[in-house]
């Protein structure tokens, strides 16, 4: 049975088609999950894609987290289902309390749109299982609010439990401890600011997003 990935669509999301295309290029099936529907249609993994959900009004993710679909995403995550938040999706997952910390405005107040080198720090997560520790991946970032911050206690916890799964080689946005991506305690919810779905072919400048997306599909396939 083909692995099915649900891609959450909020008003203002704008990377959903890129994710669908990337999943399909890897042989998976992908479908849109409308934010107003309180169901995941039985998918095997969920991606909360990038964009500006609900216009990013108040704070990125602040309104999106109250969408009916997010309750279903929360239940799916609690049951061990793979959930990946990319860029704005990462912001939504922190606001929803599915991941710790928060994303602030970039240090230097510049909107960043550039390739970034990411070092894989842990392969124990649904987004990094097919990568190798120490591997450096070139994946674009595209954000204004990607400056990861959290309390010192949370940071210590993330470090001790090796839940920082990706770090920037050259920190572009001021994130504490160079954090580019983190995972939940059960390691099935991952959020990252860079866009692996935009690095799926050399024609796009990099195919380094593939090991990450393949990891997600591997985790999803177990449930299919």
């Amino acid at each position, binding site marked *: 049975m083909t692995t099915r990935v649900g891609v959450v669509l909020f008003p203002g999301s704008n990377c959903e088609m890129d994710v669908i295309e990337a999943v399909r290029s890897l042989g998976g099936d992908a479908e849109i999950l409308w934010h107003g529907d309180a169901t995941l249609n039985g998918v095997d993994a969920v991606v909360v894609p990038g964009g500006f959900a609900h216009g990013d009004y*108040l704070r990125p993710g*602040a309104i999106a987290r109250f969408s009916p679909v997010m309750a279903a995403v929360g239940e799916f995550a609690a049951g061990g289902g793979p959930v990946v938040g990319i860029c704005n999706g990462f912001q939504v997952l922190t606001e929803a309390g599915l991941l710790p910390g*928060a994303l*602030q405005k*970039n240090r*230097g*107040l510049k909107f960043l749109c550039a390739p970034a080198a990411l070092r894989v720090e842990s392969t124990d997560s649904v987004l990094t299982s097919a990568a190798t520790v120490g591997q450096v991946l070139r994946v674009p970032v595209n954000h204004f609010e990607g400056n990861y*911050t959290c309390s010192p206690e949370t940071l210590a916890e993330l470090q001790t439990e090796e839940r920082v799964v990706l770090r920037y080689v050259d920190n572009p946005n*001021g994130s504490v401890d160079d954090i580019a991506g983190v995972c939940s305690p059960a390691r099935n919810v991952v959020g990252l600011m860079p866009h692996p779905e935009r690095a799926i072919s050399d024609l796009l400048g990099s195919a380094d997003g593939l090991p990450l997306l393949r990891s997600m599909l591997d985790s999803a396939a177990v449930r299919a």
Partner: protein
Amino acid sequence: MTFSVHVEVRLRPGIADPQGSTIERSLPHLGFEGIEGVRVGKSIRFTIDAADEASARAEVDDLCGRFLTNPVIEDAVVHLEAIEVAPT
């Protein structure tokens, strides 16, 4: 009773404020000297109907904690004032 509410959302002490520091750095170029500690926040105003001030405040605090602020980085100062007393 109806209360007029002003919620001031601020970054918590110790949380870096890139907007505040950028504004602060630009001040000398504009000829403003001696200004320090610039912090940028949000100001949110609304009215609320509640039985009394205590219950209005409790509801606004709940609203702030769950929606208007992100407690990881922000806190809120609530100003609340009765603007109308319902006839008894």
